[in-house]
């Protein structure tokens, strides 16, 4: 049985995944992270389908969503989230390499909660991840129905 964790990380690049988890680990947030590797899996997880049929109730406190994903891309995942009655208030932070105006616009149109460009520089990256993690997993009050690290 899969346990619900407070952070859902949607990241197809294992290196980025590792670096992200490294960053989150500094504030002991790594264990609260569930990682899925493509858009389809992310939706399966959130909508409790396929492998996640038995997943416990509740939504993550925050979804860290990459845009460029295999199968179903981040924007599409976001769209499904925002159109689903149970999911639509879940905070979503886009974590991407893209600085494209278009991506930003699309994301904000779908009421994304934050848009973070992954800095190339490692220090900057770690710093960014840490701040995102702290803010969304700890400081921010998630909407009802979301799991929160106590």
């Amino acid at each position, binding site marked *: 049985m899969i346990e619900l964790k407070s952070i859902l990380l949607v990241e197809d*690049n294992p*290196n*980025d995944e590792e*670096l992200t988890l*490294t960053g989150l680990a500094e504030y002991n947030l790594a264990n609260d992270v569930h990682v899925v590797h493509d858009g389809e899996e992310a939706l399966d997880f959130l909508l409790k389908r396929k492998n996640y049929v038995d997943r416990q109730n509740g939504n993550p406190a925050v979804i860290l969503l990459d*845009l*460029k994903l295999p199968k179903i891309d981040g924007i599409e995942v976001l769209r499904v989230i925002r159109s689903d009655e149970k999911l639509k208030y879940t905070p979503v932070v886009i974590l*991407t*390499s*893209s*600085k*494209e*105006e*278009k*991506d930003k616009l699309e994301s904000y149109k779908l009421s994304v909660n934050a848009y973070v460009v*992954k*800095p*190339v*520089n*490692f*220090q900057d*990256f770690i710093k960014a991840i840490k701040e995102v993690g702290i803010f969304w997993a700890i400081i921010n009050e998630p909407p009802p129905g979301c799991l929160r690290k106590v």
Partner: protein
Amino acid sequence: MTMYRKLLSFVLSLSLIPMLVTGFFSYYSFEKSLKNEILKKLEIIADLKVKKIESFFKERAGDAFVISKSIYLQNYFALITRYFYENNQIFFQQTREILDHQLGYYSEAYGYRDIMFVDQNGIVVYTTNLAHFKIEYGKHIPAMFEDVFEKSKTIISFSNVYRAPVSPQSFLMIVAAPVRNSQGMFIGEVFFEIDMKVVYNLVEDKTGLGKTGETLLGKKIDEGALFLNPIYHDPDAALKRIAKKGSGLPILKAVHGEIGSGIAFDYYGDEVIAAWRPIPMLNWGMVAKIDTEEAFETVYGMRNRILILLVISTFIVSYFIMQITRSIANPIVELTKTTKLLKEGDLSARAKVMSSDEIGELAKNFNDMVEKLTSISVSLKDAQRIAHIGNWEMDLQTHELNWSDELFKIFEFQKTIIPSNEIFLKQVHEDDKEFVKIIHTDSSILQTPYNIQYRLLFQDNRAKYVEEQCETIFKGGKPVRTIGIIHDITLQREAEHEILMLNRDLENRVVQRTQQLETANKELEAFSYSVSHDLRAPLRSITGFAELLKNKNIDNLDEKSQHYLNVISESTVQMGRLIDDILSFSRMSRTELMETKIDFSVLIQNVIKKLDNEVKDRKIIWKINPVPNSTGDMSMMELAMTNLISNAVKFTKNCPVAEIEIGSLNFGENSITGSVDHKLDNDKEITYYIKDNGVGFDMNYAGKLFGLFQRLHRQDEFPGTGVGLANVQRIIKRHGGRIWAESKPGAGTIFYFTLPNHQEGDG
């Protein structure tokens, strides 16, 4: 009536009428005088004849007087009377013989038929004519002599004419004279019997009278006039024929004592000229007459000759007049013929110049005029032929329709066809026929001008497009003519059609190209997207893990290893910057311009403020001149200005005191250094410049300045990606401007860029 006939009749009447009138009058007066002369001549002859007759009878009376007065005769008269009464045969016979002897000569000499002695009792006592003697001797005179016997008792008198009892063809007369004895006593009378033949001979003498001349003697009787001599048409007329009263015959006038002459009708009904005279001595009348035909023969001959002469001269005169008239009229007739030919369309027709007079001049001028008109007409025809425009004209009074040559060509009709609306409609395309009919009918009723296009269709299924324009010409408010042109616009229509097809093709191609472009753009976008994502991710991994490695083994790493790891990190950062710049460059090309008003002074201030970080340790003298505003995409223009100003800052970093000047060129200036490489048009564009006193560059490499990834300085001198100026150029070009630079190594650089002067355009 033609000119020739008019002229001819005019000249003919002018010349022939006087000639004929003169001829007639001169003939008339000539005839009159000739007739008068003939009448006068006739009167003279008549007078002569009267005189001859009178003198004959006077002689006879004289004879009778002389004899009756001679004593000899008186004696013998008395003797023979005595012997007769005494019946003394012997003496009687003797006396008689003597008398016969004497009187026989006498009788013979003067042509008496008989000389008789009648005694006072009216008894014939002696006669010279033996034949008479037997009958009359001793007897009383016949009753018809009683009158003359009685009358002659005192004076010599004449008896009536009488027929000889023995020969009825002879006509006789008695002249009786009284005989007296020596005592003067009436003892008897002497009768001289005159044979009228002598008188008739006198009368019948035709001298001066011609063939039909005749003289008539008449005696007045109760019924009118009795003819006394035999006449031509009636030899038995003497003493038998009577000219009755009221018949108007000239003899009646004569016996009534009238003297005269003139034209009359004779007893036979012929027209004659006659002279009538009385013979008072005998109480007779005489008429001398000639048939007018003969009398006036010379007159009539003359008349005929004159008539013939008149006819001949009329012909001759007419002939010459015709010649002259023709010579006058012919040039005009020729001219008229020429005008007719011209009217019928034979433009080669020219009038013959036949003389050098005014008519010749007229013909010459006319020809010149035709020449000019023809050349105009030919020009018009050529113009129509070249332009494929024909014209038509309709007279609204006569409804005569005329087409120009070109119109026949457009309709493809032979020129022999007579233009009409029906024929024209035959060539109109079935689908357009109704429309054309309606327009034509409307226009003919309302006199409205029109401009329509329709098709003609020919037998070989060829179609022509034509444009027709029509107008009505008014004169004094009344429509007199409709005129129109028909323009063959088939070629234009075909060209238009072709253009339409080409346009459609072009549009299709544009759509295709746009689609291709859109596809390419999409691909490029996907590429950029992939670059921004996929190129950055490995970089992050490199720098990230290099950093982790460094952090983890910081104490075990020697200085060199640390350096290596630093190089790896810096390189990846540099790589990241490159990727960012490329993406930004491609974004500049792709994103839409959002044009707004740009306050350049504010923009410049903002950019400089942003550069605070970089310039805080530098000594820079900013010279910011007032610049005009412009329009453009604010974020792009900001990027461009940032690039240019930060460049100026960057390339002056080695100057102890950097001088950076920003401004715009004044009206009419080409550049601040006087270079004329770039022609400026201040009406249409604003030129900004950014000037520094930095390292500058060799103008030989100016061409590379704005190329992507092109750099003119080494990385360790002046770091950069070589994307900045390429970006600037792209932005300026997208705004419709130009950018260029002037520089010299060590002497600084001036960047110029222009933007369209929208304000000027608006104003």
